[in-house]
């Protein structure tokens, strides 16, 4: 096939969501778990996906916002997996954002 076809380099946002399996630990849970997310998921959705397996099942649900920590940094809630640059098999932690003064 030699016919030339114009190809456009697509950005992450243009592609169909791809599966990104992650290694996740939820708060004080006892075990690392496998949690599949997609490149289109926001951190809020990622945190919920992880919490689904643990929160209220092994770890008491707390009425606080949950944040995703990747490579030691909290990733903004609205950022997507693609934008945050999560690669398959990356590790994330999901923690409650406990207000100061609460223990």
């Amino acid at each position: 096939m030699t016919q030339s076809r114009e190809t456009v380099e697509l950005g992450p946002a243009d592609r169909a969501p791809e599966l990104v399996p992650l290694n996740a630990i939820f708060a004080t849970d006892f075990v690392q778990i496998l949690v599949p997310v997609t490149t289109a998921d926001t951190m809020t959705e990622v945190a919920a996906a992880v919490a689904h397996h643990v929160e209220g099942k092994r770890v008491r649900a707390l009425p606080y916002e949950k944040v995703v920590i990747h490579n030691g940094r909290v990733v903004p809630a609205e950022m997507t997996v693609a934008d945050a640059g999560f690669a398959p098999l990356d590790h994330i932690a999901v923690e409650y954002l406990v207000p100061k003064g609460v223990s």
Partner: protein
Amino acid sequence: MTLLKREEWQGFVRDVDWTPTYVDYEAIYPEWHCGTGKVPREAWQGWEESYKVSYPEYVATQREKESSTYAVKAALQRSNTFQDLDEGWKSATKMHFGGVALVEYAAVIGELKMARFGLNGSWRNMATFGQLDEMRHAQITTFFGHEFVGQDAQYDWTQKTFHTNDWVPIALRNLFDGMMVAPNVVDLAIELPFTFETGFTNLQFIALSADALESGDVNFANMISSIQTDEARHSQQGGPTMEILVEHDPVRAQWVIDKSFWGSARAFAALTGPAMDYYTPLEHRKQSYREFMEEWIIDQYIHTIEDYGLKKPWYWDEFITGLDTWHHGLHMGLWYWRPTVWWRPKAGVSKDERAWLASKYPNWENVYGDKWDVMIDQVNANNVAATLPETLPWLCSTCHLPCCNATPSRNGEWKVRTWQLDYDGKKYHFCTNACRQIFWKDRDNVNHETLIDRFLAGQIQPMDVGGILNYMGMTPDAMGDDPDYGAWTRDYIGRAVEGIAAATVQGATQ
């Protein structure tokens, strides 16, 4: 007139090495199988077992052992002992039969390797007895497990376990292939007879027999303690090999010990730990797993390796800290992922049991109590479904067991941490720092696909719980479940329930 004493003639049985000339020595004793390494070939001439046995003594003594073990079995077969045993204890035996029978057979294959490639005639003779012993253990364990197949389908896993891709046998095959069959015979003699048989099997075969006897399972106690009498003899292959290796290559000796000790410690935390501290009925527990570990491993085994001139392994602090956590985390994992095991794991966390756990493990409530409390509340809210898994635990790339080891933080909080490694373009995860270190040092050998890797590579289809159970060979009649949810939850009925997922509580139908 009586027969000549063994000491008069056994030297001839032991003196059977010769110098080959028609074929190169290397062709008969390939370095890859023999692993002499830095040890000069002639050093092996000094190999001598201290606890000696001859063929006629062997068959006479083993006949006595076999007839008494089978006699106890026959006597108890006519009683109702089995029906009267606690479900938890039965689970300990199912775990044992399925987790041990074919491991004994792997040891047959390993002993045969030493019987062929061992570097001294008397070593090869000892291994010849060793393979017979292991054949006995494989057969007796298989046969005793078979007896219960008709009463409980989970005993089918006595023979079946290692033919499946269940995560437990994957982990154990990975460990035992790597320490019992695949290594060169020098490493093998230190990993199997020395580390495993003078160290860890004491825990499962002698220490556990104390719990078995207390639990009323005389037959099982008798079988496992009889098995260990063979180990006590043929494990003597380890000592002389160790002495020679330590003299010529102590660094290698230390590494081989360290690696196999760690792998064994991980596996026993998964199998022996829960059996002792959770499945054995509270009133029948002789000591805690930690106490048995202190008695058999820390006092006895470590003393032994120090006497041979080696040191405690480099990861000693991590190991000691793990005595308070590994098996508790693994127990929770075995319970939570109970559809994947061939026994009925009992949670074992009633108030009395928790009081016992807290007395033996002062941090237990702090690390595990809160999680069990959430699960108890779910069960009491009639929502057992919330205690069933919908994803896989992450499995360690070295030990293949769930990554579930909490460690303390400076602020006193116990948390599971991540231990990662980027190697050859791939990211690996581990349960502990030492598993990561072992992987790195031994990366070409231990680097093997975990169940997670297989799942993500699409080898398991369909990619859901049903597909995974099917891949694991799990069938409905053998699938594990808690034998009695009420036993450990009824103490807490009526307490205020907060922080369990509200939606699932409302939607509960169980």
